[in-house]
């Protein structure tokens, strides 16, 4: 059913919009099962519609493509998302997605993963949470951390744009100290939450802080995180995808901003637990990475 649910009945092909047919025909389901998928397939495949609803030049759209390209088994993956800019993209992708209430995403994902394990004991099903910093670290911090404490087999990806962007620019826990936004005119009074460190101390077996400036690095991290979550326990990726509108940049300046932050607030941080490290070595030997 994972794949069939997107197969259009031939009687209706002539009335379906071409972009939806393209999503069925050019997505990478069930391809390259024997070798890792990756960003090299992006130019020829289609998992996200061109006319998505994010702002022109938004780094989130690029980061989402990298994430989608790196999913080990897209047809057996469920993405749980939450309210925010990311939720605007999910109507435009050819994957199973569940929109949860704001902040509930890790609790919802935990339930889905447990049911999938029970319902399909012989099939590897991946559950990936993809939400913004407001949902992951502010409103949903409790649910995020509790899922780590419980050692749920899910991957949590936070698209950290350091602001509540689509509600007009309010500061979030991930906003750096001193940052001024339209709805935070006096500047933030305390430091940015180091969620990647919280994830480590809360039981994640793989925790990364990075920007989306290097597609290959993002794809590699996503793949490793999902494989570890499948076999060992929770994993966390914190990926900087700046809101170019809220920080006053043009559509072509997102990549430059991410590159700048590679050396600053998002200087590479990577934690891999000893058992995850062992597992990654095994995956590499088997050609799964």
């Amino acid at each position: 059913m994972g794949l069939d649910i997107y197969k259009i009945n031939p009687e209706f092909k002539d009335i379906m919009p071409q972009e939806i047919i393209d999503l069925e025909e050019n997505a990478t389901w069930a391809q390259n099962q024997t070798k890792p998928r990756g960003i090299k397939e992006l130019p020829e495949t289609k998992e996200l519609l061109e006319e998505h609803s994010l702002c022109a030049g938004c780094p989130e759209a690029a980061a989402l493509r990298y994430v989608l390209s790196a999913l080990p088994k897209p047809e057996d993956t469920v993405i749980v998302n939450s309210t925010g800019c990311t939720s605007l993209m999910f109507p435009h992708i050819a994957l199973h997605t569940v929109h949860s209430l704001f902040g509930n995403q890790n609790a919802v994902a935990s339930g889905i993963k447990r049911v999938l394990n029970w319902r399909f004991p012989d099939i590897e099903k991946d559950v990936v949470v993809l939400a913004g910093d407001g949902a992951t670290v502010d409103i949903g911090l409790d649910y995020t951390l509790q899922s780590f404490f419980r050692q749920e087999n899910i991957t949590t990806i936070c698209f950290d744009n350091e602001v509540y962007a689509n509600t007009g620019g309010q500061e979030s826990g991930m906003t750096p100290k001193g940052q001024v936004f339209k709805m935070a005119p006096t500047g933030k009074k305390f430091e940015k939450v180091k969620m990647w460190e919280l994830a480590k101390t809360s039981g994640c077996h793989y925790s990364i802080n990075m920007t989306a400036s290097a597609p290959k690095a993002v794809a590699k991290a996503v793949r490793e995180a999902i494989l570890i979550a499948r076999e060992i326990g929770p994993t966390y990726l914190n990926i900087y995808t700046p809101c170019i509108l809220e920080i006053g940049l043009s559509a072509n300046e997102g990549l430059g901003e991410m590159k700048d932050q590679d050396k600053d607030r998002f200087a590479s941080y990577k934690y891999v637990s000893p058992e995850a490290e062992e597992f990654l070595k095994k995956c590499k030997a088997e050609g799964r990475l």
Partner: protein
Amino acid sequence: MANQGPTYYSPYPTAVYEGVITPPEGKALLLTDVVDEEIAMREIAKVMLTSENATIFPGPQVLYGYNEEAKKKAKLIKEMAEVLNSKMIPMYDYRPKYPKIDAEVEINPNHPNLTIWHNNIKAAIFIGVHCHYANVALKIVRAETDCYTVAICGLSGHEDAMATLRDQHSSELEKFIKIAKEVKAELGK
């Protein structure tokens, strides 16, 4: 205001507030009347064949071939569209689409009136739409347009449609197509 029940919170004049409810098993709903299924099928066929820009809106339960029943229904709906001389516009996804839908070629349950206004549709059949989204779409269409809506439902029907057929599966669709062919011949369409 103190005596108002939950339906008063609805911004739309919902059918249930007007005392219209879904038909009992074996029956169908025509506007406010509970009638035999065959009578309703005949009336639906007549309305579809005589209304301007009659359209069928197939939903995800029939658009995607996820089981044999869905594949069989798809063939029957295609035949139904040919018999009723109607267009088909798919409701392939329920999720709101921003910044806007292309009302020429698609319908979305969160603003179905846009497609009906744009294409000047005067009669429409909703089929294969999950009940909770059919309820949303039909309420909006009922309130915002003059379109005669028909719900062909696999469960208990929808009171917000002008006509409702309940418990409809492939065998019932075959029966409806047979009746529609008779009505078409009678009307000389």
